[in-house]
């Protein structure tokens, strides 16, 4: 999704990782993790796409696979073995498990291998951080993004709705768009006045929230965590 809709975010990811002291490459044959089809109930189609990406990742000799999207990281680590089990491909299921062991979400990786140091954050910057569902509840990554953002010198908002689902949910946002928007609104209405931006580690959530903010004429910048760290 990043390379289609937000290559700038991708560039930020690369720079942030380099600043932390790592070499970065994107394997040529990685396409998509297959999650959109998996979530819609189309396992065969999801497996077809996921398999391509999985084989590309399995063939790559990198130490770690950093995924700058909580939902994709969760798809690979938590759901790929199940996806291939369900579509009857036991071998792929096993490969998926070993690939999953190398996967880390971006902030999870940075929190562990930190050294990125403070970014050039504006003095009055306050970040309302959105915890995306897969990252929070499937990967159990909760403190890492907040720690990494704080270390970079940003204040974090006290956002009571920060852990509630944004309402995107893939095809849900198309099939029940009114509910999807209502869920975004509830989060948006609870963003503290003092927040100067909204950040998150899942582009799909961010685009959904950004689109709703724009429709409501609310002027609040929405950024990916990598962009915050890449200042």
């Amino acid at each position, binding site marked *: 999704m990043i390379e289609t809709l937000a290559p700038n975010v991708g560039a930020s990811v690369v720079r942030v990782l380099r600043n932390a002291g790592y070499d970065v490459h994107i394997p040529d044959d990685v396409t998509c993790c297959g999650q959109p089809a998996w979530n819609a109930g189309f396992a065969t189609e999801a497996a077809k796409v996921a398999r391509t990406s999985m084989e590309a990742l399995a063939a790559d000799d990198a130490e770690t696979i950093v995924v700058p999207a909580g939902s994709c990281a969760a798809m690979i680590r*938590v*759901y790929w*073995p*199940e996806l291939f*089990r369900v579509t009857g491909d036991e071998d792929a*299921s096993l490969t998926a*498990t070993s690939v999953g062991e190398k996967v880390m979400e971006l902030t999870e990786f940075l929190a562990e291998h930190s050294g990125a140091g403070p970014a050039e954050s504006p003095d009055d910057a306050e970040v309302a951080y959105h915890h995306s569902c897969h990252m929070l509840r499937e990967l159990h990554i909760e403190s890492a993004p907040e720690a990494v953002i704080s270390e970079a010198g940003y204040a974090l908002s006290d956002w009571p709705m920060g852990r509630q689902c944004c309402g995107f949910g893939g095809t849900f946002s198309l099939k029940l768009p009114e509910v999807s928007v209502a869920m975004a609104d509830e989060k948006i209405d609870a963003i503290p006045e003092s927040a100067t931006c909204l950040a998150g580690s899942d582009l799909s959530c961010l685009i959904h929230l950004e689109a709703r903010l724009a429709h409501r004429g609310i002027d609040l910048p929405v950024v990916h965590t990598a962009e915050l760290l890449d200042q």
Partner: protein
Amino acid sequence: MERQAFLRPIETALTAPPVSKSHPIPPAPAEIPELVFIDPMDDPITTFADNAAGLGVEVRFAADRAGLVPIIDELARNEAIESAVLSFDPEIEGLESTMVALGIEVVPFGSGVDIAQVDLGVTGAAGAIARTGSIVVDSSRAGGRGASLVPPVHLAVVESAAIDATTSDWWRSMAERYPSGPPSQLVFISGPSRSADIEQTLTVGVHGPKRVWVAVVGR
């Protein structure tokens, strides 16, 4: 239908279900884990009193049976008690004369006698649970259910030595407590009746008693 006809499709259907790789079920533990509480408990009696009071129960202490008299007197005044029904629990044996002496009409607890108009129900308790602030009423001991249920005020007398720490002290020793099986109705009562069904507003005193008093004897 007959039992076997009901169970047969279940037996047939119960082949091992598919095992999910995302959130697999852990194996059943050999023993059910004990309850571990965040706050330590010093003394079951004080903990019981605190938790019961937190539920709206009036808790009083009596060193012995004689000490029940002032408690009943206080209760009768506070709650405007004119009539009472007493269960057959051993803890309140002999209390009838005390109540009569205090000017309370004692209505017999027995088949066909209408206790719906009585002000106070008095029972003993087979025990109490400190962590939940509950008293335990055993219908066979009490001789029935209504005394702790129908009148708007309930007084339960419990021996301090019968106060246990947690539900586990009851539920993990049922076979020891009741070697021939549990009584027809055992109830853990945790405070006066309540509902929050109307706009989540707590209202005390719905169908069961509105007021619950517990007298702890022996300490």
